[in-house]
């Protein structure tokens, strides 16, 4: 069961890694931000699975922090963009 | 391999990548990113020293880990200060460059408000 959970975590990380090619190729800035968003959600899922598999104390707290904050860069992107367009 | 060796090599690689970009890239914000890469590489090396210090009750040595935590916070403070300096420099000279001649146009774009 532990191995299965780890394999699932690895599979999610792998798909997230594939998604990161959007950071490379864009073509638009939003596409790059979306890949980071995917990394946030996938990272939370992978951490939860790893936490259940390894029982290192406190990993759920890391996942909680990541869940809370992983969208901040995207919010900053949206908030900073229109100002750039108007000037 | 002892636990965390791979992460240690990642740390060494990050220091190398960051050092190269710090020397080669002329843009200040890119230099700042490179500097942060070096920093996190060093933190990872601390991390594997902490992991190797595992004994009995702890799977890690808490002293290097605590140092990394203060290090991350101080690195953020330094980054924020550097960004503030960069934005102010850009406001003064109208360009993003560390080259003293690049923005030497006293009447031009110094005040864009």
């Amino acid at each position, binding site marked *: 069961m532990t191995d299965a959970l780890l394999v699932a975590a690895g599979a999610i990380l792998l798909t997230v890694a594939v998604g990161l090619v959007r950071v490379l190729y864009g073509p638009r800035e939003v596409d790059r931000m979306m890949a980071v968003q995917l990394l946030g959600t996938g990272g939370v899922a992978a951490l939860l699975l790893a936490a259940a598999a390894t029982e*290192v104390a406190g990993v759920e707290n890391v996942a*909680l922090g990541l869940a809370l904050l992983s969208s901040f860069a995207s919010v900053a992107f949206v908030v900073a963009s229109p100002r750039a367009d108007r000037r | 391999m*002892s636990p965390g060796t791979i992460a240690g090599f990642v740390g060494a690689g990050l220091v190398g990548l960051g050092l190269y970009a710090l020397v080669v*890239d002329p843009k200040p914000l890119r230099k700042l990113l490179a500097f942060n890469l070096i920093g*996190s590489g060093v933190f990872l090396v601390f991390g594997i020293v902490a992991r190797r210090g595992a004994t009995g009750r702890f799977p890690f040595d808490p002293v290097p880990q605590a140092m990394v935590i203060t290090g991350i916070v101080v690195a953020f403070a*330094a980054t924020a200060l550097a*960004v503030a300096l960069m934005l102010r420099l850009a406001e003064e000279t109208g360009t993003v460059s560390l080259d003293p001649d690049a923005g030497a146009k006293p009447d031009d774009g110094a005040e864009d408000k």
Partner: protein
Amino acid sequence: MTVFDALDLAIAALVLGVAAWTIAAREMFSAVVGYVAYGLLLAIVWVRLYAPDVALTEAAIGGGVTGVLLVVASKRLGRLPQPEAGPGLGLKLAAAGLAALVAGLIAAALLYLPDPAPSLAPEADRHLAQTGLGNAVTAVLIAYRSFDTMLEKVVLVLAVVGVWSVAPDRFWGGRPAPLGPASPDPALVFLARVLAPVGLVIGVQIFWVGADEPGGAFQGGAILAAMAMIVMMARLMRPPRIGSRRLRLALIAGPAVFLVVGLAGPLIAGSFFAYPAGFAKPLILFIEAFMVLSIAATLPLLVAGPPNGEGEP
């Protein structure tokens, strides 16, 4: 064990790949996005190194707060003309050689680390009961090496002073520029209204459990700081006037309380920065509470930057 090894190798390749992307990307914004992704990945690496305290710090500061700082900065700087002239091939090769040499030396040093590894973990464990704490990392930060941590808080205050000091004289004492646009998207206002109260509870909880589990003043304070930032981005709150006395008190409360307790050490416990036996844990939590306040005030101000006249109506 093989599953772990494969996972570790994959994560290592991913981290190095994203790091290489941040220095190879042509546009500044793509590099910054790469760096944010890199920060999130590092949090996962720290979990694998059995360092959940560090992972939490990295997720909050590397992924959240730094992301906002850099994305906003790259957007502002990206509008200006960029000098393109890079160095010549010779310098590039020399730099690559230097970088490879340094990286190789570090890797070699790691291979020849002493075995068995020196460790302060037994020492930390032996005195843990005296502090009343369960989390050894928190004990190192606030009890064993408390002088470092106090000075590090002073560094944060100095950084704020440094950021403020680049303000033009005529704006001194005013407000930093707002973090968000004049008419924020209603969805953003909704997000700030939902996220901020939940984040407040989580931040305080992570500070509170930090005495015994992973977490602590830095992590909790950074989460609270991020919540203050999203509230400011949604324009539900303006950045405070930097001349405000209450703000300045909040900034120095952490190091000041720490210093006062540390200096009172000789009277109550027999030496500087020592805690009286049996009373250590409440005192540590007391100091940490003020540190949380100071960190939560400091980080958003570092992101907001100096007052530049845009903040005044």
